[in-house]
Each structure stands twice: as C-alpha cells, then as structure tokens.
C-alpha cells in the first residue's frame, strides 16, 4: 500500500488555479521531494494532503484513508510542519510541546516526558524553559519539527523546512529527516533547492504553475538537467584566460562569467576525478585559485533545462 496516493488533485482560489491535476505516489518509508519556486503550488498540495484544504477535484489517499471523506483518521497518522513556525511565541519550548501532547490525549506526565525527550533529541534542553520569542530561527524550526513529532506520526509533511536557515541548521534538519526515515517514517517535503531534494529524496517531483512537470529519481532528473557544474575562481584576474583554457582542455567547454569572476563548465561523468584533474593542471600552470568546486544546477537552471524557458 502506498503512503500517499493522489490523482488529479486540483485547487482553485478565485480565478487562479493553484494546483492543477497533480498526481503523486509515495512509498512508505521514503522521502519524496516537491521541488519548485514560490507560487508553484507546493504548499497547497501539502495543505490538501494534510486535510487543511479541501481539493476542488481529484482524489487522495493518505495512509490508506480517503483524506476528503475521513480527515479525522488521516490526522491521527500525520505530522505537519508548515512554512511558518506554528508555535506560540509567548510560551516556553516545554509548554508548547506539552500543550500539543495534551491535545493528543497524553497524560500530564506522559506529555511532560515526551516533551523532555524531544527537547533533548533536538538539542533544545538548555532553552526548554525560555519563551520561544527568544529563540533563533534555527531553534524555532527545530521546536516546530519537534512539535509535529509528538504523536509519533507515520507520515510527516515538511513545508520548506530549511528556508531561511543557516547552513549548519540546514544540515541539522537534513540529519533529522534521515533519522526519521530510518525509523520507518514517510516524509513529503517541499523545497526550492535542488541540492536539498537531491540530498534527501528518493523521488523528486518538480512543480511549476500548479502542475508536476517532471518526476523521477534525483539521478534521472540530474541527467536531464545537466547534472553538475564545475566552477573555478582564479585568485588573480590576470589568470582568467589561462584558467579558461585549462577547463576547456579537460571538459571540452568553458563559460566565462566575468561578473562573478568565475569560469564554469558542465560536468558529465565522474565529478571528483574531473575536479582533481583540473586542480592538478592549474597547479602545474602556477595558477592560484580562491575557489574550486562542483555544484548542482540551481532551480533556475533546472527550469531552463526542463521547460526551455528562463524564469
């Protein structure tokens, strides 16, 4: 049985069609990433699946239950972390968790114990008795995710869990999501970053204008959108031409981006070996570089590759 199965999901707000016939199939115990820019309809899809919004058309089964006819059953299985931290700023971390625990029919003591457990797990024990308005963005996010885990959901919706987080907190969220899936939880997450979807998801669905325009494994997607890009930033602008020559010799092409001071080229095949080769040759030519790296296509590049239209 699929953890999530949706077909023809459609939602209109006034004259705009926010979601237009979306189909999704999520296997239990996997992570599926919904990738797309702002306004693509990702959040609306999540809100429909989490029973917050009724679809205008289409069908969806979440955890085996019809999410339109039996929303109460679905709510017993899911956890939701929305885009905006859904915690009470005035309350402490512990109080927020205990409140939700009590609403989930835990006894006072159980709710307290579960709160302590989650605070510990999320490295928030030190801030447990502080009011949430004193928390940093990363801490708030962690508390928010912790709150959605109180009822030990089998299915977790994470709506842009790392937007606005610093790289370290971002890594924390990633580790957390992986550990949840290791425990058998199914995760549907939305993101604006290909690297995040690539890092976490077994399947990626790319959304644009309310539709899924592409879906598949990260490898298949990357193959389609050109995989990785090698970027070199020479320390001295005088070495720009020399750098470009070396990159072209190794990769067969080199784009010069004077504005950002970069030489870039698409990489096909083994990235690490190619990078080592370029590094060796630059070193041999006596060119010092301030930056040398591989990066995945940005969302803009993904869309350019998939739709042929620059966003």
């Amino acid at each position, binding site marked *: 049985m699929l953890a999530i199965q949706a077909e023809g999901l459609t939602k209109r707000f006034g004259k705009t069609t926010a979601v237009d016939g979306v189909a999704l199939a999520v296997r239990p115990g996997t992570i599926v990433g919904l990738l797309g820019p702002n306004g693509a309809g990702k959040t609306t899809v999540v809100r429909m699946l989490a029973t917050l919004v009724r679809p205008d058309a289409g069908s969806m089964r979440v955890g085996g239950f019809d999410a339109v006819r039996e929303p109460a059953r679905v709510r017993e299985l899911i956890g939701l972390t929305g885009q905006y931290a859904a915690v009470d700023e*005035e309350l*402490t971390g512990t109080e927020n968790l205990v409140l939700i625990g009590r609403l989930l029919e835990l006894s006072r003591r159980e709710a307290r114990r579960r709160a302590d457990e989650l605070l510990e797990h999320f490295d928030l024990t030190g801030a447990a008795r502080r009011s949430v308005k004193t928390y940093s963005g990363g801490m708030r996010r962690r508390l928010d995710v912790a709150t959605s885990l109180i009822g030990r959901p089998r299915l977790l919706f994470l709506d842009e869990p790392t937007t606005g987080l610093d790289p370290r907190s971002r890594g924390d969220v990633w580790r957390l999501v992986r550990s949840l899936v290791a425990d058998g939880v199914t995760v549907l997450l939305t993101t604006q970053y290909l690297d995040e979807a690539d890092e976490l998801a077994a399947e990626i669905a790319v959304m644009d204008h309310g539709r899924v325009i592409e879906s598949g494994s990260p490898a298949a997607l990357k193959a389609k959108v050109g995989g990785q890009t090698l970027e070199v930033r020479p320390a001295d602008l005088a070495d720009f031409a020399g750098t470009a020559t070396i990159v072209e010799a190794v990769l067969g092409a080199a784009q010069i981006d004077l504005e950002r001071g970069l030489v870039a080229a698409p990489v096909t095949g083994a990235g690490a070996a190619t990078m080592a080769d370029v590094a060796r040759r630059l070193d041999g030519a006596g060119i010092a570089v301030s930056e040398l790296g591989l990066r995945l296509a940005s969302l803009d590049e993904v869309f350019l590759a998939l739709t042929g239209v620059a966003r």
Partner: protein
Amino acid sequence: MKLVRHGLRLAWRAMLRIKHSPEQLLDLSLSPIMFVTLFVFLFGTAVAGNWHAYLQFVLPGVAVQSLLFASMGTAVGLNTDLRSGIFDRFRSLPIARTAPLLGHVLGDFFRYLVTLVVVLGYGFVLGFRLRGSVLAVLAAIGLMVLFSFAMSWPSSIIGLLAKTPTSVQGYSFLILFPLTFGSNIFVPTAKLPGWLQAWVKVNPVTQLSNAVRGLMLDQPIGATASHALLWSLAIVVVFAPVAGWIYRRII
C-alpha cells in the same frame, strides 16, 4: 465531550500566556480604573449631585462595561492566531474541529475575573460598599461573567472575519459603544431624551446592569436578572453556532 476537553486544554494556553506576560493584565486593569476615575470625578457631581452617591450608582455598571470590553479580547486573540501558523497545527491534529475556537472563549474567563477584582477593589478604596448578601453578590458576578461569555461569541465572529487585529478593535468599538454607553450604566434612564430611552430600554446591557446594581446594593431587581439570563442564553444560542459555522467555512 472531546470538544470541551480539548477546549479546556487550549484555554490553559491563555493562562500560560498571562503567566509569561503579566503586562496583558495591566492593560486590562488600567482601563476600568480609568473609567471609574473618569466617570466618578468628572461626571459624578453633574449627574448625581455628589460623587459619593454616584460611585454607588455607577460602579456596578462600570464592572459590566469593563467585562464587556474584556470579552472583546477574544476577537483580538483569535484574529492574531488565525494570521499565524499555529491554527494550521491545531487543525492538523486529531482534535475536535472547533476546539481552538472554544479554547479562546474559555481562556478569557480568567481575564474576566481579574477585571472584576480590579473594578470592585478600586471602587472599595474610593468608598464603594456592597450592600447585598454574599449570595446576591455572587449571583451578580455570575450574571456578568455569563453575559461576557455570551458576548465573546459575537466577538469571536469579528475576530474570524476581520483582516487584521487593528480592524478588530475598530469593529469591536462599534458594537461596544452603543451597548455600554447607550444603557443606564452611567445615567438613569429617566434622565435621557425619549428616543434614546427607547434604545436603552431594549438594550440587554441595561437589564444586566440593573440586575447587577440591584443585587450588589440590595435593591429590588424585578425581572431584570431573569431577562439578563435569557439574553445571555439567547446570544449564545444564536452566535455560538454562527461562529462555529464561519470558523469551519473559512478555516
């Protein structure tokens, strides 16, 4: 049953909020103190000849008025929650759908009690004396709290429909001013012009403040207490389902 249990647990949240920012209570207590001071000393002599006599007359009414203002707090709290993400969280939980709404309404009880203590305490310092029996005074308090609870339902409708917490204030005043000032809280009905008397006589707040005044000062109350009680029930019966309906529609 589930609805009430979850509503109470959500109301507990309101207690916690007060615990963390007690300045909310300061806000709540200052306005009744201002009203008492303003009316007793500014208009007291003009209306009743001397302010001591007027204090006895006006204080029960100011208590009613202060509670009604406090019941409009429901609207602001509800509206603030709606605009934040926290309602999404509540709605994704397997709890009764309207429990968050009920939680807000119930959570305001404590605020009512604080308001009452402040008004009566300050009145006592100025020389206000309760003349009714303990039972009568408790009945007066019960009537006021019940009526405020009833009024927090129309208040929650404003909270649900208003675009911002600021516009909530505006709408609330549109309701509160005719209800409180257009009653016999401040001036005996007989002293008002005829057209205003017509409104004052049908205004439920008049019934309530007559009953409260009578019970606190040991004066005859006639049918005013039962009228106030009926009004409270009627307001709940009409507005609670409407609030619930709107809540389910827009959420």
